[in-house]
């Protein structure tokens, strides 16, 4: 089986599991007392932000590895990860306001986490724009690796600066060090959605990587 086929299977399985997670979320998971049905979007929003961050982290890591080892496979992986990360960022950025409107009463606020994720989205886009503007594959790989590493280092600074600036985002209550304060059923649903989105990321990246392999034999 080729890589793209395997990637397709992983994606299909992940999508089926995603359906399963949503059945569980809607039917078997208790409704949040204050937020009601709107809270159900957590099971897409939170894991897609996880996948986007995973994509950014692995993009940065692949960039570092590329500069040290000069192996084009890392570059191809970084490119795949950036595209998939862009998609997940978009999901996160659209589901966020959908939830925020009924709960916060506004589509968007310049809260720390929102700014951070928006900037992450812009960095993905900037990364892809740069790749599109360089034709020589060797040059493109080095340039995008440099940008990828800078982006990874920048994220904590953006986080810190916007955090000092202002925040009103709900704090993570599932994974905080003390005992989770959410009901166990909710926690399990959320954690399984994390697993499913990670699998989705893997499936997408496998397909995208295979495409890159086919399109430039460089």
């Amino acid at each position, binding site marked *: 089986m080729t890589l793209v086929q395997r990637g397709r299977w992983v994606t299909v399985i992940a999508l089926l599991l995603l359906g399963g997670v949503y059945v569980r979320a809607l039917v078997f998971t208790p409704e949040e007392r204050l937020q009601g049905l709107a809270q159900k979007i957590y099971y897409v929003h939170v894991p897609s932000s996880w996948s986007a961050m995973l994509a950014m982290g692995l993009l940065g890591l692949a960039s570092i590895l590329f500069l040290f080892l*000069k192996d*084009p496979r890392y570059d191809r992986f970084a490119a795949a990860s950036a595209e998939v990360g862009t998609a997940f960022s978009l999901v996160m950025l659209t589901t966020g306001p959908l939830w925020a409107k009924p709960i916060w009463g506004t589509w968007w606020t310049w809260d720390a986490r929102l700014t951070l994720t928006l900037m992450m989205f812009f960095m993905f886009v900037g990364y892809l724009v740069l790749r599109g503007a360089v034709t020589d*594959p*060797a040059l493109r790989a080095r340039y995008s690796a440099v940008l990828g590493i800078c982006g990874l280092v920048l994220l904590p600074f953006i986080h810190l600066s916007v955090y000092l600036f202002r925040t009103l985002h709900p704090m993570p209550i599932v994974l905080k060090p003390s005992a989770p304060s959410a009901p166990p059923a909710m926690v399990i649903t959320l954690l399984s959605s994390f697993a499913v989105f990670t699998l989705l990321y893997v499936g997408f990246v496998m397909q995208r990587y295979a495409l890159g392999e086919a399109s*430039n*034999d*460089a």
Partner: protein
Amino acid sequence: MLSARDVSHAYGSLRALDGITFTLDRGQTLAIFGPNGAGKTTLLKVLAGLIHPRHGTVQLAGGRRAIGWIGHQSQLYGPLTVVENLLFWASLYDVPAAERRTRADELIGRLGLGGQAQQQARTLSRGQAQRAAIARALVHDPSVLLLDEPFTGLDRVAAEELRRLLGELAAAGRATVLVTHNVEEGTELASDIAFMRAGRFVAFGPRAGRDAVSLAASYREAVGGG
């Protein structure tokens, strides 16, 4: 003076250089002929240390400081005068401050740029710019010359003059590598000849007195079309 041993370079599955090996002594000139994309410029950049090859080694007596590079771009700063350009490059090569001026003046005289010395580089004609570029490349008295299509864009008279100058430099004991796609341009300067295709030397050896016409036939045979 300059040697390459089994130099190979690749990006992914794209082979740019494949097992290049040669040695060049004082006074020798190696002319490398090949079509565009054969890896000629990549090889020069590897020799100059601008590209680290995946495999193989390059040995150069004197290191980067010993290299004089003449390409089809002049590497001059347009807003600076010819003299200022030469003085800047001399300072980068740590030519002693007291010698920079005399070295620059000498090269300007030798290359017939006396009238243009105080002119901004951007106002020079193509031929003048090429001569200024040669002066720039020689300002630190390099012992190895790397020439990347140096005849491109020169008219017949200027090309002839450049050939004469390169001949003089080789006679004065420099080692020269010249790459070009035009067999007619470099043949008479060369002591050694290589034909290059797809990153490899498909033919390599002393010129042994052959002229451009007979070489052109061998070239077509070895490289194809060309």
